[in-house]
């Protein structure tokens, strides 16, 4: 197996190839930030999605595309947590950092 050529030539490479990948990243992070799920739930969903891909025979699976897995994982965690049924944003009911509310 050969490493991708850019491993040796592409220092400080861009992190996203396409804007939709950046949006997918930001959307997953934003929903976690606003308390719709724990980041670890998203991570577990991503691990499962990638694990399924790795356990599928190469002839049976799509070519590797990290952000396809990212989107599948995001759709699953949104579904599992019924994020689409969450109450709309209103009076700041979502505490982004509830643990920071201590008065010291």
């Amino acid at each position: 197996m050969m490493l991708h050529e850019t491993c040796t030539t592409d220092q400080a490479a861009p992190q996203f190839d396409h804007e939709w990948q950046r949006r997918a990243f930001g959307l997953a992070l934003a929903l976690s930030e606003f308390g719709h799920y724990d980041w670890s739930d998203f991570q577990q969903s991503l691990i499962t999605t990638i694990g399924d891909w790795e356990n599928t025979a190469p002839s049976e699976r799509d070519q590797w595309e990290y952000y396809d897995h990212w989107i599948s994982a995001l759709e699953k965690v949104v579904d599992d947590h019924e994020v689409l049924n969450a109450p709309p944003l209103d009076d700041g009911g979502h505490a982004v950092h509830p643990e920071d509310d201590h008065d010291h």
Partner: protein
Amino acid sequence: MSDQFAYPSDREASSAAKVAALEALLVEKGIITGQTVDKVLAYFESEMTPLNGKKIVVKAWNDPEFAARIVVDTPAAVAELDLPEGMAGAEGEHLQAVANAPGVHNLVICTLCSCFPWPVLGLPPYWYKDPVFRARAAREPRKVLGEIGVELPADTEIKVWDSSGHSRWFVIPERPAGTEDFTDEMLMDLVTTESMMGVALAGPAS
């Protein structure tokens, strides 16, 4: 014109459409606003950058006591520095530093997903998530390091750290020789993201 390359671009369009549709639906239902994702990305891209990691490494180079603390209780040592506050989900609570030393080189990988230490390194280069890189780096790190230009003495031990949600590893590279008189700014220029992943040594960015 149909050819064998049509499918990936269809898939690409399909993925892009899925993201746009999901965001639009969330906005329509009032669960997020049209600005939410942009705000989160703006914060992330301005604050969660390798600049944080560079400051940590330079502090460790200049302060032996800090260098000793950073590998024992990384979050507490990082908290001593004036860095941006972490965000929930991308927080630094699981950060764990490992230090290179004469005879020891550390390499960070993630075999399942990219549990990357964002708060200090920003996002990983895209090839870090490539399954070939991950699998080979776990199995034959010395060979992989050689291929990407990191030639280590035969008797240098290579430790491979598998990042996870529980431990987000990053590397304190060795300070290059001949930099005793460097200012902090000059030293920071020597610390690349790659050197903090263990896939390069500290030195001028190539």
